């Protein structure tokens, strides 16, 4: 039985919940049993916001994350939230612009300019989509074109072009990491 545990964490307002929704949709489509649990503060901006996905191709035994293998950290507020539950072989993606002190451990930390890339594309708001592209490309278990379809399905027409650009930019960032 294969289990994927992913965490999308940062500050409120960064689009982490949407990011998690896309991946849970994708994993559901691939036949996994998926549990998505969200946690955020009453404020719409700032404060810790996170969403966890636990996906299993067998019968999952526990819905909450205990052994993360993919972690996204977009803000300092989330840097310590996952301490102790990250696997040693996990991929931890960090945006250094707003996370000055990333968590420490044996796992591999990949620092990528996610928000800077989004700003360069025209809006900081698509940081989450850039991150989606990065994770989709780095993960061996997720098909990129299914992610793209899922994103296309939920994007308002007005932001479709921008979202697609952001996804591609994220994929490019991840390919750079792979090549290095």
């Amino acid at each position, binding site marked *: 039985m294969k289990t994927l545990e992913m965490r999308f964490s940062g500050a409120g*307002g960064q689009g982490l919940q949407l990011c998690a929704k896309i991946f849970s949709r994708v994993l559901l489509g691939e036949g996994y049993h998926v549990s998505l649990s969200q946690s955020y503060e*009453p*404020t*719409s*901006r*700032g*404060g810790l916001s996170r969403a966890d996905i636990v996906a299993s191709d067998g019968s999952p035994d526990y819905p909450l994350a205990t052994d993360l293998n993919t972690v996204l950290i977009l803000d300092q507020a989330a840097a310590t939230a996952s301490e102790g539950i990250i696997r040693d072989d996990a991929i931890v993606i960090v945006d250094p612009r707003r996370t000055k002190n990333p968590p420490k451990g044996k796992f591999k930390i990949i620092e990528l300019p996610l928000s800077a890339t989004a700003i360069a594309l025209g809006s900081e708001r698509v940081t989450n989509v850039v991150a989606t592209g990065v994770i989709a490309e780095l993960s061996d278990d997720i098909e990129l074109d299914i992610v793209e379809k899922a994103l296309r399905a939920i994007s308002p027409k007005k932001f479709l072009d921008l979202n697609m650009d952001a996804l591609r930019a994220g994929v490019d960032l991840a390919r750079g990491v792979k090549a290095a």
Partner: protein
Amino acid sequence: MNKQVALKAETKKDFEIRDYLRLDLFPHFMCPGCGHGIALRALLWAIHDQGIDKNKLAIVSGIGCSGRVGTYIDANTYHTTHGRPLAFATGLKMARPDLHVVVITGDGDCLAIGGNHLIHAARRNLDITCLMLNNEIYGMTGGQVSPTTPHDRFTTTTPAGNMEPVFDASRLAEAAGAGFVGRELTIHLPRLRDLISEGLEYKGFSFIEVMSDCTEINGRKNDLGSSAEMVLGQTRAMRPSEYDNNVVDHPFRPNSMDMGVFVRSNRPEYGATYRAMVDQISEGQKS
């Protein structure tokens, strides 16, 4: 003739807002472009202009984005329960008439769950300054419809557009008997400052409606643009409607909104009346 106004060779700022802030809490929690920040500046500036001692100032706030605004003021601040800041403030002012009591509340806090308290606070005309930050939505909880959400606006609870008519908060306060009522846009900071200043000075219940903007929730959901575009958009509202009919072929915006002071009455202040009555009764008991 030219009026010559020489410039003061000032070396220190007259009003330094940081003197009035709890700097350790900054940056504050509000979203980028939130009008509440501008309203907070106006309030503190007015307090400065009125020369009110920070130790004699009590800020009472409720729940919501507006409720958190008071937290940043370096004075006596109370973060109370949802809808009840006016009730708390009433008790506070009755117990300590020497304090300047300022209530910071929002449209949902003040008009929905706290609507009852508003009308009675206004009716009593107790010497409280009530600053209602009207951003036309429940921002803190993610954008639900509030009593001031305009017609046809999209919120999470009105996915097909708001069908309810709105409260005109200032007219409501006026009708309930508030002694001083005024409304201003956040973008017009000097005017807002002067309005709040007048409200603070007024002996009685002063209700000040601040037209704030919620860029991140209301703005994004309803496609109202960036923060600058939203505050510019608000200025449309202050064009009197008869004005357009005279100028152009088609009206600019059907519902226009007045700004400024609507009511400044000579009604007796509740606290003073109450104390006079107490004095009278205790005189009577003595004799």
